[in-house]
């Protein structure tokens, strides 16, 4: 009985974790370059059932949520016509140095010029390697080519370098739309040739709201089902208590 309670409780915990992930996805439906979190489930160990069961009869211990990385599919491109907005099309990331000095990768291409004319992301991280535009360059004269070449009034200033890692799913999520490569994800290397930048557009979040809503309802119902198992186990224990009146 206690095992049944634990199995059901494990199922409820797993569904709550799924719900947390879906809530996070839904909160980020308008976040530039956001990638949907994938939560999977697995069943737990099976062990010999209790008394009144023959040898070899095994019951399971419930379910657990597993982190299956992120869904790295392309988000839709949104036209902004802002010269400093770039969208990455294909596999690849922009390299930035975060405000605290850590190197990171991002697909959020909403760039700005900081006080010293350096290209930076919306959250204050500088593009790496640093790219400085001549003082007084009007934003409208800045051009960014598909290969990342940055021009100011027709003159080449530098190049935004696109990089990728072997297993983007295994990168550490730093928040602020940034990821850090880890030992599992592999080192940073140049992005494939077919990865291009589109100026004047941003990559939208790849969360499908309708799908996320369905996932949320599913998680809620599965949570309820597991709670019913707990309720029934509770009733059965009450009945067992009733043996001795």
């Amino acid at each position: 009985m206690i095992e049944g309670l634990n199995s059901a409780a494990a199922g409820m915990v797993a569904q709550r974790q799924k719900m947390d992930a879906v809530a996070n996805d839904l909160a980020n439906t308008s976040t530039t370059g956001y990638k949907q979190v994938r939560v999977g489930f697995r069943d737990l160990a099976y062990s010999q059932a209790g008394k009144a069961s023959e040898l070899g009869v095994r019951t399971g211990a419930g379910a657990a949520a597993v982190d299956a990385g992120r869904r790295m599919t392309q988000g839709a491109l949104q036209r902004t016509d802002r010269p400093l907005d770039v969208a990455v099309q294909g596999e690849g990331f922009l390299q930035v140095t975060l405000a605290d000095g850590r190197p990171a990768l991002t697909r959020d291409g909403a760039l700005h010029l900081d006080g010293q004319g350096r290209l930076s992301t919306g959250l204050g991280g500088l593009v790496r390697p640093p790219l400085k535009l001549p003082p007084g360059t009007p934003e409208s004269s800045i051009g960014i080519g598909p290969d990342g070449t940055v021009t100011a009034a027709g003159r080449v200033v530098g190049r935004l370098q696109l990089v990728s890692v072997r297993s983007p799913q295994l990168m550490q999520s730093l928040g602020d739309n940034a990821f850090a490569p880890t030992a599992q994800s592999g080192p940073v290397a140049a992005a494939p040739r077919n990865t291009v930048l589109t100026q004047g557009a941003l990559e939208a979040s790849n969360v499908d709201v309708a799908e996320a809503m369905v996932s949320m309802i599913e998680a809620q119902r599965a949570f309820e089902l597991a709670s019913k198992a707990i309720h029934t186990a509770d009733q059965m224990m009450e009945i067992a208590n009733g043996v001795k009146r």
Partner: protein
Amino acid sequence: MLAEQTRQEQIANDLANSSTPGYKSDRTSQRSFNQLLLSNSATGAAVGPLGTAVQVSEITTDFSPQPARETGDPLDFAIQGEGFFAVGTERGVRYTRNGQFTVGANGMLATAAGNPVLARGGQTVPVGPDGRVNPATLDIVLLQGPRKEGDSLVSGTPGGAGVPGQARAGALEGSGADPARAMVDMIASMRSFEAGQRVITTIDSTLEKAANRVGSISV
């Protein structure tokens, strides 16, 4: 009552896994203990068999394929038809129908737990630069005597008659746990349990009468 507890545990596990991709539901079978033949001690005439109790004889798993649902995720795979994906683990090759895969540490296709998914011939499967894998390269294995091991893995002996199914990308197989059936089973199980309790209390009151009332003159 004890047998119903085991059944209850099995149903709780099914319900906890109602959204685990590729989960296969269980079914508890019960059988009576060996019966005693009662006979009249004076005449020797047989009265009839007496069942002594019930026990869980086995828990069988329904490995039949479940409908797949579209997820659109390039690393989600569903098997249409029979068979299992082969997975390399520390304990040897294991099998699964939970096709929610990810990219492992060395750029190879892996399960969410990090075990490599195997292609025909036992090689690992590299994930292409576009983040996709051709589902036709994945090994689909038919198993004899599949047995659940937990962690969505199944052990068994490869082989068996039939045609292995085909893997499809962008979809996941649903859980085999049917919530409606599980709820009905759960209620039925609880009522059997309750009936067991009634039998105990009835026997108790009969014994109570035998112990305290036999020979008592007052009514």
